[in-house]
Every structure is written in structure tokens, then in C-alpha cells.
């Protein structure tokens, strides 16, 4: 893997940098699609994607021990698992979504980057080790440890599937734009093609191939954004602080100089939206099924904790570079005075502005490489999501709930395949409707639902003795249903995707309301639960606490 990183960095660093440093010496017309050598970009794109997929597949074909197969999914060390987690976490919402938001809305885009990172310290401090000690495969394992096995598993499965579906749709929406940009295909065709690829890859390779693809993709992504940011800063004589300052001085940006690219409040104009979105991004991380899956498959609690530490460090590094890339993209790709009239003329939409920056600073080869990295990013995250969704259906719903823990392995596999197929088909359908939506904003809705449905239940089950099945189930359902409804009525879905004139729910994220309702519901229905089962569940809290702390003991 280090050799691959080195070779890749060498390839990008060897590219000719624009001769004139400290000035951006091209106009928007240089960036118009018809003047780009599409054949060269396509060849580089295909080459990098092919090599990465072959490397990931070969690594996954290495002989595995029984322990690997039942346990780790190949990521033995904390760093490896952290890299795989980062690979799954840094989705299209992070690259190119964050940079695109910074291009479109300035400082508010940066807030998304901070929000995506801000949940990690809490994951490391409060959840990583406890999740590993209590769970085997899915969130349902943790919730059902001392509470009702059937009810909590069904709730966790439904919540996970909703979150997975929206997250998947966001990835497919982004990949549809990428395929249109690169090959000129219709958006819908791009979504369907990559949706099919995602299903084939995740179903034929399983967790081993998906893990390896996530690691390879993470290495490529870190190398790619490092070199891209380096090239962008090089243009300004390595004066990082000059980039946002120049970006804010641009006259042609729709946000406007006076409104302030460097000031918050353009996209999130009211305090309620800001606080609600902040809560969604910070708390939603803990409820993402494909991220939780990687903690459950860590070899032990220490590795799970170290994975969270590495994931935080790597994500922090990535988001720092995303800020540089976002503000540089404003300067390089949008600096022409004619920009305002050409706002919507970029093929691929604003999600693709990072690729235009790659073209601007490094030509076709850099653009081809970055496009390949973006494609691998989307494929890897989509494959991880499909796997997590399929695991929820086959493990929780079929094996534990329907077959009472005694499933036939062949049937469980068949259920898993069918679940992946159904999930993929639904995500493709939803992805087709999300053509004109920023991928980071769409993913933030998935975070909002995860924060409302999973986070309150998980926190109170783990840390509050009085939490009972009745409380967790009713409160969790309140959070899930209210967040889904408020998401449906939010501006992004109700207006942008469904074409209505005004949104019924005016805020950017439902989390502030739906998460509060969920916490309140769990508290109220647990406190009023006087049933013998409720009492017994409260007593079992001590055993759960011991198990969560040291990984020993049982009911």
C-alpha cells in the first residue's frame, strides 16, 4: 500500500505545474467543456479505476483465517480499520460536496466540513469501545443486549434502512453527475450503471473486497486531495491565507462581496437551521449503520478505540484540505466576470467544481485522476452502505427475528442478496430524483434522521439505567417518524426535489425538533413503565455496563 501511495503521489507531482505562480492566468472560457481533451481524461480515469479495483480485489483474495472471516473483515490494526472507516465515511458529501458548498455559499460550506468532523471526538470518547464490547454485527445487537430482542431489532433495522437509502441516493446522484460530465451520458443512465456496479461489487466481493476497496480509495483520496491542495496553494506562492481573502474579494460571485463569502448565514440564514444542522451532523455520525459496522467488526475494543482516533485524525486532515480546495475552486474556476451568467452551464453541476479546479491547476491528467478518485469514493461508500443494509435485513430481520437465531446459512445469504438488490433499486429510484441537489446537503438529511432515530436510543440505552424497551421503542419511533416527515417537508426535498413552491418545514435539518422529541419520548415512556419486564431491564443495566466497560460478563 505505501508503494501505491508513493507511485501515485509521484505521478501527480510529476505533472507540469502552471508556470506563473501567484496569479491565476486563465479565464472561465478556458474551462468550458468543449475545449477539454475528453479522450485523455477518460483514458486516465479508466486506468486509475481499473488499477485500484484490481489492487483491492487482489488484496481481498489473499487467504483468510477463520478469525478473519468471522471477525475482522481484514482490518486487523487500529490504523487499518481507521483507514477503512475513513474510506467509508468520506463519501461524495465530503469530496466533492464540501468543496462545492464552499464554492456556492462560502463560509457556510465550511460549517458542513466542521460538522462532519465534530461527531468523531464523541464517537471516540463515549461509543467506540462500548459498541464493540456489546455488538457483533449491527446496531440491533447493542440495543437488544438488555432490551427486547425482537422489537428493538426491528426498530434498528428500519431506521438503518431509511438512513442507508438516503445516503445511497446521495452517492448515486453525485456519480450520475460525474458520469455525465466525463462521458456525456444522460444523468439517469449514469445512476443506473453505477448502481448496478455497486451491487455487483458488494455482492461478489463481500466484506473483504469492500474493506480493501475502502482502504485503497482512502489512500488515493488522501494522496489526491493533498496534491490538489498543494498545486492550488503553489499558485499563490504558498500563501494559504491569501486564498480565502482573494475569494472574498471576487466581484462575480453570486453570494456577493458585501454579503461576505467569509461570513456565515448565506445558506443557513436563521439560527434555528444552524443549530439544528449542527446537532444533526454531530450526533448523526453515531447512528450511521455502515460506520457502526466497522466498529463491530474490529478485532477488539482497543482496536475499535484506536480506529476512532485514526478516523478523527485522517478526517480532520482531509477537511482542512477541503477548505483550501473549496476556496481555491472559487478563485480558479469561478473568477471570470462572466461567471454569474454561466452559473448553471457547468456540465455536472456545482458538485463537479473540484474537478474543474483539478483541470485548472493540472490539466487533463489531474482531472482524470481526481475523477477516478471521486468515482472510487462513490463506489466504495455505496458498496459499504449496500453491505450494511443487507446485513441489517439478513442478520437482524431474517436470522434473529424471523428464524429466532437459527437460520440456514444458504437462505441467510439469499436474503442478503435480495435485500441488497431491493435496496439498490430503491436508491437508484431516489437518486434519479436528486439530480439537482448538492450531495452534502442530501447526506446531511440522512445524518438528521440518524441523529433523531438512533442517537437518543443508543445514548439512553447505554447510559441511563431507567431506559426500558417501551421507552426506547416509542421514543425511537417518534424520532424516526418525525424526522422522516420533517425531512420530506424540508426545503431540500419539498422544493428542490419535488418541485413545490414553498417548504412546509422551513429549516435545513429536522434534528433539533425530532431529536428532542425522541429524547422526551424515551424519558417519558420509560419513567412510566411499571411492568415487571421494565423493572427487570433496569436491573440488567449493571450487567450491560460491566460488559460495555471491559468486554466481560453477561446477563
Amino acid at each position, binding site marked *: 500500500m505505501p508503494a501505491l501511495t508513493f507511485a501515485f503521489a509521484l505521478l501527480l507531482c510529476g505533472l507540469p505545474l502552471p508556470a506563473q505562480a501567484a496569479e491565476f492566468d486563465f479565464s472561465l472560457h478556458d474551462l468550458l467543456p468543449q475545449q477539454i481533451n475528453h479522450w485523455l481524461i477518460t483514458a486516465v480515469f479508466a486506468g486509475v479505476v481499473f488499477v485500484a479495483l484490481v489492487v483491492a480485489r487482489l488484496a481481498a483474495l489473499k487467504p483468510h483465517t477463520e478469525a478473519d472471516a468471522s471477525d475482522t473483515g481484514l482490518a486487523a490494526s487500529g490504523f487499518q480499520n481507521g483507514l477503512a472507516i475513513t474510506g467509508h465515511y468520506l463519501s461524495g458529501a465530503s469530496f466533492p460536496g464540501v468543496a462545492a458548498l464552499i464554492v456556492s455559499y462560502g463560509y457556510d460550506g465550511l460549517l458542513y466540513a466542521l460538522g462532519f468532523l465534530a461527531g468523531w*471526538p464523541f464517537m471516540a470518547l463515549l461509543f467506540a469501545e462500548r459498541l464493540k464490547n456489546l455488538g457483533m454485527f449491527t446496531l440491533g445487537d447493542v440495543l437488544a443486549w438488555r432490551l427486547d430482542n425482537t422489537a428493538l431489532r426491528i426498530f434498528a433495522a428500519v431506521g438503518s434502512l431509511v438512513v442507508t437509502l438516503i445516503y445511497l441516493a446521495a452517492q448515486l446522484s453525485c456519480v450520475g453527475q460525474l458520469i455525465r460530465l466525463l462521458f456525456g451520458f444522460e444523468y439517469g443512465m449514469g445512476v443506473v450503471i453505477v448502481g448496478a456496479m455497486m451491487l455487483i461489487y458488494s455482492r461478489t466481493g463481500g466484506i473483504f473486497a469492500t474493506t480493501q476497496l475502502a482502504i485503497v480509495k482512502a489512500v488515493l483520496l488522501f494522496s489526491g486531495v493533498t496534491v490538489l491542495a498543494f498545486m492550488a496553494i503553489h499558485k499563490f506562492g504558498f500563501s494559504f491565507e491569501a486564498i480565502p*481573502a482573494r475569494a472574498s474579494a471576487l466581484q462575480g460571485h453570486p453570494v456577493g462581496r458585501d454579503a461576505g463569502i467569509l461570513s456565515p448565514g448565506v445558506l443557513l440564514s436563521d439560527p434555528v437551521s444552524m443549530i439544528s444542522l449542527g446537532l444533526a451532523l454531530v450526533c448523526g455520525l453515531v447512528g450511521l449503520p455502515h460506520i457502526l459496522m466497522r466498529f463491530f467488526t474490529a478485532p477488539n475494543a482497543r482496536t475499535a478505540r484506536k480506529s476512532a482516533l485514526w478516523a478523527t485524525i485522517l478526517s480532520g486532515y482531509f477537511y482542512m484540505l477541503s477548505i483550501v480546495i473549496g476556496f481555491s475552486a472559487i478563485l480558479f474556476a469561478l473568477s471570470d466576470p462572466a461567471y454569474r451568467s454561466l452559473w448553471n452551464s457547468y456540465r455536472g453541476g456545482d458538485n463537479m467544481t473540484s474537478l474543474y479546479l483539478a483541470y485548472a491547476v493540472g490539466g487533463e491528467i489531474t482531472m482524470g485522476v481526481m475523477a477516478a478518485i471521486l468515482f472510487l469514493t462513490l463506489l466504495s461508500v455505496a458498496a459499504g452502505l449496500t453491505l450494511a443494509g443487507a446485513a441489517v435485513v439478513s442478520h437482524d430481520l431474517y436470522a434473529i427475528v424471523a428464524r429466532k437465531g437459527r437460520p440456514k446459512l444458504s437462505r441467510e445469504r439469499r436474503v442478503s442478496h435480495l435485500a441488497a438488490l431491493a435496496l439498490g433499486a430503491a436508491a437508484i429510484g431516489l437518486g434519479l430524483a436528486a439530480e439537482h441537489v448538492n450531495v452534502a446537503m442530501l447526506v446531511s438529511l440522512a445524518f438528521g434522521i440518524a441523529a433523531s432515530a438512533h442517537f437518543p436510543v443508543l445514548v439512553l440505552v447505554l447510559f441511563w439505567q431507567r431506559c426500558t424497551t417501551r421507552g426506547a421503542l416509542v421514543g425511537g419511533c417518534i424520532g424516526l417518524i418525525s424526522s422522516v416527515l420533517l425531512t420530506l417537508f424540508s426545503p431540500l426535498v419539498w422544493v428542490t426535489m419535488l418541485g413545490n413552491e414553498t417548504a412546509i418545514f422551513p429549516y435545513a435539518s429536522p434534528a433539533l425538533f425530532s431529536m428532542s422529541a425522541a429524547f422526551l419520548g424515551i424519558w417519558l415512556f420509560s419513567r412510566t413503565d411499571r411492568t415487571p419486564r421494565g423493572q427487570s431491564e433496569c436491573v440488567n443495566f449493571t450487567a450491560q455496563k460491566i460488559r460495555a466497560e*471491559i468486554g466481560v*460478563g453477561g446477563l
Partner: protein
Amino acid sequence: MVSSLNVRILDNPFYRRLCRKRRRCVLRLGGLTLCVYCGFFALIAFGRTLLARPLVGGVASIGILMGLGIIAFSIWIVWRYGRAAHHFDRLTDDIVQELKRCPH
């Protein structure tokens, strides 16, 4: 009903020490993180003009600097917890060793 194994673990001095130390560490670091994040959210929501103010020399802004500071702070917090957690690992090992030494 608490099993005999759990009763022994609850009575174990290492376990009680582990719980106390971990709770103290998590409360301290988690509380600090919460304060920093809440402060930042409050500034975003109610102090936009301050965040947009340029730094000395007219380059970048207080908001950009604070954003980078939040990223650095998040990394520092998990690094700090990672260091403290080595001690928790030793205590956990002691508990498990003692349980193995006296299985009943």
C-alpha cells in the same frame, strides 16, 4: 438479578478504579468538547459579524481561523483521550487477569 461473575467484577477494586478514572476523563474531555462546540455554534448563530471580521493584515477572517482551530481541537481531544486510555487498558488487563486467576 446480577450474576456471581458480575458481583465479583463489581467488587473488584481495579474495576471501581477503572470506572472512576474513565468517567472523570470522559467528563472532563467531553465537557470541554461540548463547551467549545456550543460556543462555536452560538457564535455562528448569533455573532456572524465577528466571524466575518478580517484578521490583522486583511487576510482570511476570524471565522476561518476558528474553523481550523475546531479541526485542530477535535484531533487534540481524541489524541489526549488515546493517551489516557492506555491506563484504562492496563486496568482492564488487571481485572481480566484476576478473574482468570480465581475463576470461581
